[in-house]
């Protein structure tokens, strides 16, 4: 594996590109960073019991990653903190350097959404939201937060949404694709009702520890496989949203799939349509071909960008999905960062660039 850092100066013309980056990861040093927003009980709980999740290792995943902190080698801030932990360095290295007009925060730890102790999970989620406001969006107006909720306790999740819904610093509700049950199931509908009432899309960034293996044959051996199965998580949840009739029940619901790719979308749509046509009597609440719901209700972030063997096929792929459905993202500071200047290996028109890098996100999230 290469660990060298490539120097590449963007040309003057390229630096003028204004972008909305829909996937930026802010990091905290340790859970105690959340103490200002945790009760004495939960502060002590963290010290005594810590996180308690449905897997064998409580603080990391059992497929160790291939890079320290899953990050770019050059993303470690000079102050010695973790990549993504230091706002001034993030500004210098990414927000300013890459012309980021708005950046959508996707904090991944701690995962209040995956705790077995639901009360603890809800406390962590609330604290994480306050931390986003105090440490990030309050200090740089370009940054926008995602409301973390404990989806396995929908009442608490709805309260958390209502607590922040009027705050323009939050622009979506964050759910983990790997929740306890397929996300279209009725237990989660109160969350969708609240999101729709407050005009917030649901952002689904790859994450979640639900105790299910990532394949129908159990856990794969390698990170390269586990990483790929983010695609199957996304396929499963899209299928679930459509076939449970979520989009029939909530016609205004918008979902954003973050870091799950999009190359798989056409084939899944074709397969769903074909077999729905034969077995629609099992799901009479699904009134139209599944592909129509997907086309109307689902958005995708671009990173990690699809790389067809023939680069021109990317254009066909986006033609099939819709140019208005893709939201540019970098995944800063993670190792598989997409650089806005080099991400597309095919020529895009100015109008297409405008949509992908900025316009689609601006419209979806109502950013001025």
């Amino acid at each position, binding site marked *: 594996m290469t660990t060298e850092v490539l120097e590449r100066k963007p040309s003057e013309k390229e630096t003028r590109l204004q972008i909305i980056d829909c996937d930026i990861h802010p990091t905290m040093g340790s859970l105690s960073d959340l103490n200002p927003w945790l009760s004495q009980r939960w502060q002590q709980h963290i010290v005594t019991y810590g996180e308690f999740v449905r897997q064998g290792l409580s603080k990391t995943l059992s497929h160790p990653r*291939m890079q320290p902190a899953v990050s770019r080698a050059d993303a470690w801030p000079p102050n010695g903190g973790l990549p993504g932990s230091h706002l001034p360095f993030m500004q210098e290295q990414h927000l300013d350097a890459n012309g980021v007009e708005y950046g959508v925060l996707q904090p991944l730890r701690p995962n209040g959404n995956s705790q077995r102790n639901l009360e603890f999970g809800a406390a962590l989620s609330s604290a994480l939201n306050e931390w986003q406001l105090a440490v990030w969006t309050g200090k740089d107006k370009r940054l926008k937060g995602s409301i973390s909720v404990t989806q396995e306790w929908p009442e608490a999740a709805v309260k958390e949404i209502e607590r922040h819904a009027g705050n323009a610093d939050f622009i979506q509700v964050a759910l983990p694709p790997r929740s306890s049950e397929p996300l279209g199931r009725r237990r989660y509908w109160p969350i969708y009702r609240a999101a729709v009432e407050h005009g917030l899309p649901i952002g689904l960034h790859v994450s979640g520890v639900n105790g*299910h*293996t990532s*394949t129908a*044959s159990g856990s794969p051996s*390698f990170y390269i496989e586990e990483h790929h199965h983010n695609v199957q998580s996304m396929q*499963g949840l899209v299928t*679930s949203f459509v076939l449970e009739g979520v989009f029939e029940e909530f016609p205004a619901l918008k979902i954003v799939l973050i870091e799950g790719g999009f190359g798989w979308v056409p*084939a899944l749509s074709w397969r769903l349509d074909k077999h729905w046509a034969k077995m629609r009597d099992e799901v009479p609440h699904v009134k139209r071909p599944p592909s129509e719901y997907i086309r109307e209700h689902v958005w995708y972030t671009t990173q990690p960008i699809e790389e067809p*063997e023939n680069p021109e096929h990317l254009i066909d792929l986006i033609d099939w999905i819709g140019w208005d459905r893709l939201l540019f993202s970098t995944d800063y500071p993670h190792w598989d960062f997409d650089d806005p200047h080099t991400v597309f290996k095919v020529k895009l028109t100015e109008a297409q660039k405008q949509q992908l890098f900025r316009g689609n996100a601006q419209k979806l999230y109502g950013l001025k």
Partner: protein
Amino acid sequence: MTLPLPQGAIDCDVHPSVPSTKALLPYFDEYWREAIIGRGIDRLNLDITSYPPGAPLSGRADWRPKQGNPGSDIELMRRQALDAFGSRFAILNCLHAAQIFHSEDMGAAFCRAINDWLAKEWLEREPRFRASIVVPTQSPELAVEEIERRAGDHRFVQVLMLAGDEMPLGRRHYWPIYRAAERHGLPIGIHAGSLYRHAPTPGGWPSYYLEDYVSYAGGFESTLLSLVAEGVFVKFPRLKVVFIESGFTWLPACLWRFEKTWRGVRSEIPWVDRPPAQIVRDHIRFTLQPIDEPPHPGQLELVLEQMGSDKLLLFSTDYPHWQFDGDAVLPRPLSGALARKILIDNPLDTYPRLAETVATGGKERVQ
């Protein structure tokens, strides 16, 4: 859109159905016959969750017998699957509870009975039929015993497994099966469906059969990754794997992602020393039905181009499963030279025992 088929097609996926456990009784040894009767197992309904017999997909309306489950009537299958498409051979893939029982011994006993039942009740009654050896994947050791027991009969042309098993199919646990298969010139056929040892999706258990069935394509994607990442084709360079009833329009996007991630983290699996797409194109084949085709003209052609090889598809009707209407098994873009490859050349390249039969004018070895 219907095309006239060239004569001599090789149908790589048809499904005979065991009519009842009673029908298998003559093929069990004395211990198991007594156990099955004594425990009332012969009176249990052993329908598998992956294919509810009443579901529209499990039996096309005009392919259902008046009595019994779809695929249980040999006369009907002879007429509707073989005669109707002018097929020279059809490979019988028997889906059964045998691999689902938790007992390795019971699984092995049922697999032995099914394979002997296939030989006696199907292969001996219709010379165009070929069959896959059903093996107890619960125990690779017993699975190998079953392969050895049946491999001398060259009317058995493949070893059959399900895509959803205890473990990802690339794991070393299963390698004895692959070693035996490679030695005997038997491809490993991996069929859609699951033992349901694990939830079918990373997000848990879906509500609907339709949802499960759609998710089987993702299960094949997992299986493809596992076989390549674990180095199965490095260890067994002559092994061919056939994905059966997997769909294939998902393949290009799967390969793009796999290649991209492999370029980033290939040091994790250093034995994979060439691009995964090349390995897949050399070793994995896909049966034709279901096509899960795109709706607009030109799109299927583009998907075929993206698959990057005309050797990957093997003709199948998936009889009696309902994947197409009438005789529209081959859509327009799969015509001409490509059709001949799919119907005849690719299956002969994949199944050495069929090629041997063709080369010897139909005199395959039986024992």
